[in-house]
């Protein structure tokens, strides 16, 4: 791997930009930890408010109407799988970029972007669907915590997609040579981080009652 073998004149021999993206990722761990804490902390509290709820049905005391549990695991599982595979795809894209294999780089990078777009699409669909069923930011603490946590994650994914599209354009123009592949590596690390955060959010929000 051309970047791993390259020893720079820095104190550690490592590239400062790669160190910078990891440092940023470390900081982002605390950001998402706070959002996840907020979600978990409110889990105890929202059952006393109005529904809809994620895993339990709720009967409106005023009208007697029953609101079914709002979480739909199949759809989210598809999104989760897409995001996981996108991590695989970008690793392959980077592998190609570092070896000057343009077709491999472009193909897998394109696949990553498509997966990312589908994930965002799934989230948008899910959000709209939930709102239709009566769950908004204001409705109850579940709505507030859910939309805040997954919304910020989704925003991070969107920023990642824009970053990757930019990389794709650079690659098309032949500017992602092996010597310059660190740019893609940085984008990939960010992308993996976003995936890894979802690896935690998925069970915590969708599978744990």
């Amino acid at each position: 791997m051309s970047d791993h073998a390259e020893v720079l004149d820095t104190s550690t021999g490592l590239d400062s930009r790669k160190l910078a993206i990891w440092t940023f990722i470390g900081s982002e761990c605390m950001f998402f930890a706070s959002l996840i804490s907020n979600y978990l902390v409110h889990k105890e509290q929202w059952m006393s408010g109005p529904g809809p709820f994620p895993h339990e049905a709720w009967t409106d005391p005023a009208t007697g109407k029953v609101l079914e549990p709002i979480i739909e695991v199949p759809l989210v599982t598809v999104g989760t799988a897409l995001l996981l595979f996108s991590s695989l795809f970008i690793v392959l894209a980077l592998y190609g970029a570092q070896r000057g294999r343009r077709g491999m780089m472009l193909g897998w990078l394109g696949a990553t972007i498509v997966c990312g777009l589908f994930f965002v699409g799934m989230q948008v669909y899910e959000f709209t669907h939930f709102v239709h069923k009566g769950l908004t930011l204001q409705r109850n603490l579940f709505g507030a915590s859910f939309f805040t946590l997954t919304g910020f994650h989704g925003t991070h994914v969107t920023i990642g997609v824009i970053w990757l599209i930019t990389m794709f354009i650079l690659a098309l123009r032949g500017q992602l040579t092996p010597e310059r592949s660190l740019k893609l590596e940085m984008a990939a690390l960010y992308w993996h981080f976003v995936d890894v955060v979802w690896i935690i959010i998925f069970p915590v929000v969708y599978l744990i009652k």
Partner: protein
Amino acid sequence: MAHAAAHEEHEAGHPTPGTYAKIGLFLFVLTALEVGLYEITYGEHAGEFGHQIMPFFIPLLLGLSAVKFALVAMFYMHLKQDHRLFSGVFVFPLIIATIVILSLVVLMAYHWAFATGG
């Protein structure tokens, strides 16, 4: 900027696309296990067995996620092959993050349990 001659040796220790794909498949299987675990414990296919494993549900689920997390971090993010500094820069905040999450959950649960009138 010097290119180390160890380029070739490094290649030998490095994961191949095949390895990456296998890990990807494994991640998919782990996800399927997570969802499967959910389905048999709380989902439409919940049954007697699901009822028995309920107390182990959260640890099992989080354990599966932890394995997925570690796989992506170590192999896809290359932490296993890279300089230890990157692992340190990632793991230390993770430790603090875990402490913060656990503390907040414990403190607020305790607070709500003892608060009079809620």
